[in-house]
């Protein structure tokens, strides 16, 4: 099914004047000392925060974003091993070869990131910032304010945030980490697929895809033949994760690349170009046949086609109204450099 969508993007988002250094692939680039210092300050806050954590096995918990009433739920995902990808005569080329992947434990957000949370990041005046100044948080970069409303009339409260770039999702993760004192980042493709399957081959333990996913054939709403729905309004998968299939596609951390044949441990494909990154899970805009745990979608420059500015915004995908994300929290806090890499893909600017 074609992913191109109509859009109402009159004069478009304000293009962010990002430095030209974004043009260089992250792998070739030295770390920006100023950005790294910011990451180190956040890391110190996270270490401080972790001292308060209760001992014992990881459990599900709920977080309230400080100085707001916005909450989200975290689900523990045990480490383990699984077969990633697909095999057999009908397997799609980019899902092959099926290969073994071993993962360390992490938490995953039970729901896609909602507008309720994302708007707190998009605008600097929504989370009582004035009454509660926070030097670490306030110093972080935020999206330029878009001219238009980025849900494009699909609704905000309880709905998944959409139309953001991978760069924006990464920066949201950094902002949320600073805000809460817990380390968040986008999931790798392997973490995402493992969580989607939740111990079963298809992620659908019983019933049909209709029970778990909003897709093109079951998501009609007022004025719209198909659209996203409030998060968590379908059945969760076996591990308690909602909307892994359908509703909105989800960004992963990884560059879209062919799978290796060999077994992998905690695999992640570093970004070297702006496109493509791997996007997962299918959406309200997809036929149910493509809403699977294994389907991979490569991000594409055409997802910003209606942005009339030069440079195009590094924050908004003007033509991807079916694209959102959720975050993971690794059980072990990585080095500041690894955190920096997860939050700075180094390839935010579009080629032109």
């Amino acid at each position: 099914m074609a992913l191109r969508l109509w859009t109402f993007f009159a004069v478009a988002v304000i293009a962010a004047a990002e430095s030209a250094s974004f043009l260089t692939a992250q792998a070739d680039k030295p770390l920006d000392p100023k950005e790294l210092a910011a990451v180190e300050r956040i890391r110190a806050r996270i270490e401080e925060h972790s001292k308060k954590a209760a001992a014992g096995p990881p459990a599900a918990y709920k977080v309230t974003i400080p100085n707001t009433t916005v909450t989200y739920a975290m689900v523990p995902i045990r480490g383990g091993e699984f077969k990633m990808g697909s095999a057999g005569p009908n397997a799609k080329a980019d899902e092959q070869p099926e290969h073994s992947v071993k993962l360390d434990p992490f938490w995953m957000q039970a729901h896609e990131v909602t507008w309720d949370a994302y708007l707190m990041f998009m605008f600097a005046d929504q989370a009582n910032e004035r009454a509660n100044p926070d030097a670490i948080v306030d110093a972080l970069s935020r999206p330029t304010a878009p001219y238009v409303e980025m849900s494009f009339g699909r609704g905000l409260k309880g709905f998944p945030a959409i139309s953001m770039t991978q760069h924006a999702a990464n920066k949201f993760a950094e902002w949320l980490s600073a805000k809460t004192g817990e380390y968040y980042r986008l999931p790798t493709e392997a973490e995402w697929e493992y969580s989607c399957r939740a111990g079963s081959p298809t992620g659908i333990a019983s019933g049909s895809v209709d029970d778990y996913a909003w897709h093109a054939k079951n998501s009609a709403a007022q004025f719209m033949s198909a659209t996203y729905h409030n998060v968590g309004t379908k059945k969760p998968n076996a591990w308690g994760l909602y909307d892994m299939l359908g509703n909105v596609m989800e960004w992963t951390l990884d560059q879209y690349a062919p799978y290796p044949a060999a077994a992998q441990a905690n695999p992640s494909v570093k970004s070297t170009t702006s496109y493509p990154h791997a996007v997962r899970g299918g959406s309200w805009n997809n036929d149910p046949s493509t809403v699977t745990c294994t389907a991979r979608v490569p991000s594409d420059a055409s997802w910003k086609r209606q942005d009339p500015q030069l440079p195009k915004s590094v924050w908004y995908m003007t033509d991807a109204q079916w694209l959102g994300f959720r975050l993971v929290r690794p059980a072990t806090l990585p080095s500041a450099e690894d955190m920096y890499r997860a939050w700075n893909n180094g390839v935010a600017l579009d080629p032109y």
Partner: protein
Amino acid sequence: MNDDKKPEKIERREFLKKTGTVAGVMAAGFPSIISGQSVTNSLKVGLVGCGGRGSGAARQALTANKNNELTAVADVDEAIVQQATDRLKGSQTFGSQVKIDRAYVGLDAYEKVIAASDVVLLATPPGFRPQHLTAAVNANKHVFCEKPCATDSPGVREVIAAQKLAQSKNLSLVAGFCWRYNNMIQEAVRQVHNGAIGRLVSHYSTYYTNPVKPLPPESTRPAGMSDVEWQIRNWYNYTWLCGDSLVEQAVHNADKIMWIMRDQPPLSAVAVGGRAVPANGGNIYDHFEVNYLFPNGYRVFLANRQATGCFNGTLDFVMGTEGTLMLGSGPPRIETPDGKVKWQWQGEEYDMYQKEHDVLFEAIRSGKSKNDDLNLATSTLLAIMGRHAAYSGQQLTWEQALNSQVSLVPKPVDWNAKHEVPGLAIPGRQQPPVF
């Protein structure tokens, strides 16, 4: 029609070094307006206003035809010119068409760019547009003119005159009312014109968005910076420069309103408006709601707001006796009064921003002219009429709006001048009423 006289001397503020490129082009003697036989010849494109939108327009102009060359650029800020130049030159797809030998800085820079170009892209804040458009047409140049075309009624009248002149000279002039170049909205409007919703009853149109470019605190204003410079650098906060939020942004919906009405004007308008967030020295409203009365009792309600944390949407509900056309929430569609979908857009939408330039350059290169975007002036005036009605608190007619003598733009605009702007308009307390 050729007018590529070189400036007598290198301008004081012309800072990019002149290269051999331009001499070569000029020596070859290509006419500045190209006939159908010479489609491989280069067309010199000049850009006035090098911000994000201007740079985007340059990209689209260069993408429209590989023989289009960007040769001259202008802005009030040297750093912005430099940044735009570097960025455009850095393109892997059209960078080789960027042959900027003339970059000009300052409020008079547009004159130099016009003189040096075959086709001019006008993308500064709209307060300057009438002056720039008139100069371009007087100099026999083809134009891409961003919306809106003016911030006051005298400016609109100037644009109407320039458009007539462009037509008499067979120049091409494409307006940046992008939706008119969008096949999806074209089809939706065609449905209405063909009677799909019956007789028109009313139209509710919203432009509820986030703030565009809020005014920084006065404390950040550099010592010694003049009023005019400060205002131009923060142009979105001043009515004389941006026309107010209704005119600068919601004008896209004003244009859809006029399009549906086949560009026939309303009889009168009444409006409310104001500001919830302090203006900090600026003088634009952050919300309006205008009630236009068209012939046959057709009522149009145009509402806009620029605020964070509020319900947002750029929506149109065009209501007729046999159905409602809905734009802005899912694909355009028409529902009958009992809720059945009568028509829904299906198809591939093309890039309307690119289409504007494809149409412009195709017209120029084929020797035809494209200059019938008269909505450039009338749709802008519809929005200005709403602003007049809100600021004054009065009901006013289309004729009053068209003939208003209220002139907001200082003449001339002096970069170093002191320039106090009127405070936020208080409806009902303007004497004389501000229209």
